[in-house]
């Protein structure tokens, strides 16, 4: 019989803050929902160019993105939470990006991966959109050309922090509505 070796270095995440009693545990509703949402984000990889290949490397076995809860990549905007825009967005592509964003259901987050999506990158030309925040509101920008998979995972973890700490009524209040109105989105 092979001797069983126990892994004694297991790190257990501590329970969230709440009020414990005999047979019940209460915590704030927004915290519970934030905890659940942040560990099961389903991304939509909107990959256009070179950053898309680094995303494929992030999804592969070496830098596994699935261990953060994003095992299922949805390619339909109706079923996703996070749109990761990876690569250069040309002016011809901008209306399509906007339409995909409009089809997403609230709550939705946007991550701009790479220099081209954040600000136009090295392509300061007549045909390239200088940053996707000209057409849609962005939550996290990941710089790099292309960013290393560790950087993409770091951006993903920042999104997780945003999701965990978001107030559940944020999408209905005036500040968010004003933000969407400034982009022309109702």
């Amino acid at each position: 019989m092979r001797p069983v070796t126990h892994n004694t270095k297991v790190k257990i995440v501590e329970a969230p803050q709440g009020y414990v009693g005999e047979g019940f545990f209460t915590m704030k509703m927004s915290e519970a929902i934030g905890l659940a949402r942040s560990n099961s984000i389903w991304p939509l990889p909107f990959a256009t160019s070179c950053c898309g290949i680094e995303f494929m490397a992030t999804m592969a076995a070496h830098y596994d993105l699935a261990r953060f809860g994003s095992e299922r990549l949805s390619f339909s905007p109706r079923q996703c939470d996070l749109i990761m825009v990876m690569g250069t967005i040309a002016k011809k592509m901008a209306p399509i990006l906007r339409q995909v964003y409009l089809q997403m259901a609230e709550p939705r987050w946007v991550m701009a991966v790479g220099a081209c999506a954040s600000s136009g990158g090295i392509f300061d030309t007549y045909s390239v959109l200088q940053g996707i925040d000209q057409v849609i509101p962005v939550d996290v920008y990941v710089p790099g050309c292309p960013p290393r998979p560790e950087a993409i995972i770091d951006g993903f973890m920042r999104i997780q922090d945003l999701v965990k700490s978001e107030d559940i009524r944020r999408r209905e209040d005036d500040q968010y509505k004003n933000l969407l109105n400034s982009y022309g989105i109702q």
Partner: protein
Amino acid sequence: MLTNEIIKQRLKDKFGELVYNMEEPYGMLTFDTDRDNNLKVMNFLKEDEELGFTYLNDLTAVHYPNNIGKELAVVYMLQNIRAGIRIRFKVYTDISKPDVFTATGIFETSNWLEREAYDFFGVNFVGHPNLIRIMNVDEMDYHPLRKEYPLEDQTRIDKDDDMFGR
């Protein structure tokens, strides 16, 4: 063995004065011909048994704003796959009426290459089945790769030209 000398001789025999400016920069035979002669030269190079340039490698355009009357040049590059020889020829056309006969009847490759030359330079290929813009947005009303147009987007308000040294 096909060499540049044989090709030069055959072209001179067939077309005489219509092919001129024969040079060999970096080993590739290059010549110019008249605008209306481009299809005849291509057909001759393709159909001839000895020459056999049956492969269109590339088709592009160049803008020379200083050659008045011959501003737009269309460059064709053909290749003989078996012998491994490349050849290049150019036709020049006026920018106010840039009509060139299309090569889509001879090589299928030239379909999108001519659309790209039209999109970037405005060369009008007569007889092309579908001459519309291919790379840029359809609403664009100028031909961007001509020398007079700038590289950057002029409608930007957030970039300070003094800081960027443009």
